[in-house]
């Protein structure tokens, strides 16, 4: 296969997971484990699709998707941060709600095609032979996702707010003692994570597949969660993980299309098998780098 097309399609395939994973990484850095990524993504996919189809503008679709998923994620935030519910169970609940909600909203959009998304030709760079078509002729969301990774990295590393966020995630008791608003910081992180997951979902329904089918995110949200572990909670690792996964997905699809002498089902399950394998290798190495307060409820009076 043409290597130019291959790299270009890997970037498209990786973008939804990259968006969702970088958002979830920020949430987890704040000490919250939100297992509802799949539910927020599928909600973003359906809302983004509906908004884009009815306005004819994919960008409006992305904005609507981000907003809808972020608002949905606040329900998780309210339950876990204010009502102190179990984060694992609540995240699962969020996924179940999201899957039901999306199927309900999406029923009337089956079979409709998404409005096309313009490819952005970055001046000068896009004209470089080989590299131009590979990297610089994508739709705007591919660049947004890359800029987002850069922004998150800079935010966590160089800003005061980023430092507070990490402190809250590392040790919420100490952060609270220092006078930081643990719950408020975490709610903001959850909101941001929701918005990112929504963008990722909308990318699936607007660019990758350009149509709506029920359950179309097919585990992408869970893979995003796995990639955060793979990345050891570092932005660069998230980028590498998402692109590796995108590569596996595209390769197996190409092998299927080429009629390789391997059962189709084996190829379709390979991204999930490889995710498990990678999780094993990462866990076996023993260096995790997980935030200290990850998944623990915070209650000021205790």
């Amino acid at each position: 296969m043409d290597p130019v097309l291959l790299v270009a399609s890997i970037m498209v395939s990786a973008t939804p997971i990259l968006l969702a994973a970088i958002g979830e990484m920020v949430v987890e850095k704040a000490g919250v484990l939100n297992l509802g990524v799949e539910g927020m993504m599928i909600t973003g996919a359906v809302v983004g699709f509906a908004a884009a189809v009815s306005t004819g503008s994919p960008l409006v679709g992305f904005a609507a998707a981000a907003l809808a998923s972020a608002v949905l994620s606040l329900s998780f935030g309210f339950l876990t941060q204010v009502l102190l519910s179990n984060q694992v169970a609540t995240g699962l609940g969020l996924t179940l709600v999201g899957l039901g909600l999306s199927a309900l909203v999406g029923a009337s959009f089956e079979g409709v095609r998404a409005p096309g998304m313009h490819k952005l030709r970055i001046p000068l760079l896009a004209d470089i032979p080989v590299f131009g078509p590979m990297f610089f002729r994508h739709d705007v969301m591919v660049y947004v996702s890359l800029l987002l990774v850069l922004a998150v990295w800079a935010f966590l590393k160089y800003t005061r707010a980023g430092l507070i966020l990490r402190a809250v995630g590392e040790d919420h008791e100490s952060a609270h003692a220092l006078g930081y608003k643990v719950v408020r910081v975490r709610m903001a992180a959850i909101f941001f994570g929701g918005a990112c997951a929504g963008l990722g979902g909308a990318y699936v329904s607007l660019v990758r597949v350009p149509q709506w089918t029920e359950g179309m995110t097919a585990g992408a949200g869970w893979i995003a969660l796995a990639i955060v572990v793979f990345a050891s909670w570092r932005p660069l690792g998230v980028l590498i993980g998402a692109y590796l996964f995108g590569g596996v997905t595209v390769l197996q699809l190409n092998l299927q299309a080429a009629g390789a002498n391997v059962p189709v089902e084996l190829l379709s399950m390979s991204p999930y098998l490889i995710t498990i394998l990678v999780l094993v290798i990462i866990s076996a190495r023993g260096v995790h780098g997980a935030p200290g307060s990850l998944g623990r409820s915070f209650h000021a009076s205790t």
Partner: protein
Amino acid sequence: MIRLEKRPQPSRLWTILTPLLAVVLTMIVGGIMFALLGKPPLEAIRTIFWDPLFHPQFASYSRPQLLVKAGPLILIAIGLSIGFKAGIWNIGAEGQYIIGAVTGAAVGLAFYPSESVLLFPLMVVAGALGGWAWAMIPAVLKTKFGTNEILVSLMLVYVAENILASASSGWLRNPEGMGFPGSRNFKQWAAVHNDELITGTGMHWGVVAALIAVIAAYVLMARHIQGFNIRLSGEAPRAARFSGVNPSRIVFLCLGISGALAGMAGLFEVTGPAGQITIDFGSGYGFTAIIVAFLGRLHPVGILLAGLLMALTYIGGELAQLMLGLPGASIQLFQGMLLFFLLATDVFTNYRIRFAKRELA
């Protein structure tokens, strides 16, 4: 200023009241949702929760369906609840259920057209072993490498779905099926057909197994030392280790039980209500069982009741689709909301709500 004060012990009263409160809240919000969809809310709620049991015309058909649908949910949820108690999050019951059905069916089909009475029990064992083996993958990876069981068991659902696809269109396909996907129909094979045991009740072997599982789980958790160890591992992992509980053994035990029960549920479903291995035979039970486990407060008797309630929403949902043209997805949303409201109202179980003035620091 509203303040939460942690209770020294979870309130027993609220433990029982919160599921009821969650059901009422779900009905209210669900009613609003139905109204937004342009359906009469009260009629919709009545059609879902009342008509399947008491409507003169439908009840005779839908009452037996209650046990048919509740059986697998209870069986799977009992297994999951044991793990959840220990803080072991098996989210992949759907995969274990599928693999149990495939291995059990494969063993049975290997002996086609035997009419031996031993065949069905053999298939049940094979189904349980299949589900058990599938659950051992996250168990081994967790104990050997510290891999997160939530993500691994979930990834394995997607793997299992692909295995199911290849079984139904390939190696388990009915050779006399004229090329259509799907295995032989177990309903036409008397020796292995998991039929109603008492006509008109809907009770098949899966329901019997579910009831046995409820009792066994109750005995295990309330009376047996392993049950105590499981609870201790969940509530105080450090204390458990000091008292000599081996964490790895608990992981294998909990995942093993839930995998075997889910696998069995898959086999009962495929030989009974579903009838054959197809690409989408009765899917979704593995995920709904998570809601059942929580709604039943991780307690065997609670799970029994929660399973019946959840079965009611399935049957009532189908009825509402038929009678009111309510979209099928709204029931899924309904079930999700139920879990959400339950978790939200749980705050009353663990905390006291105090209305107090803000004190000066």
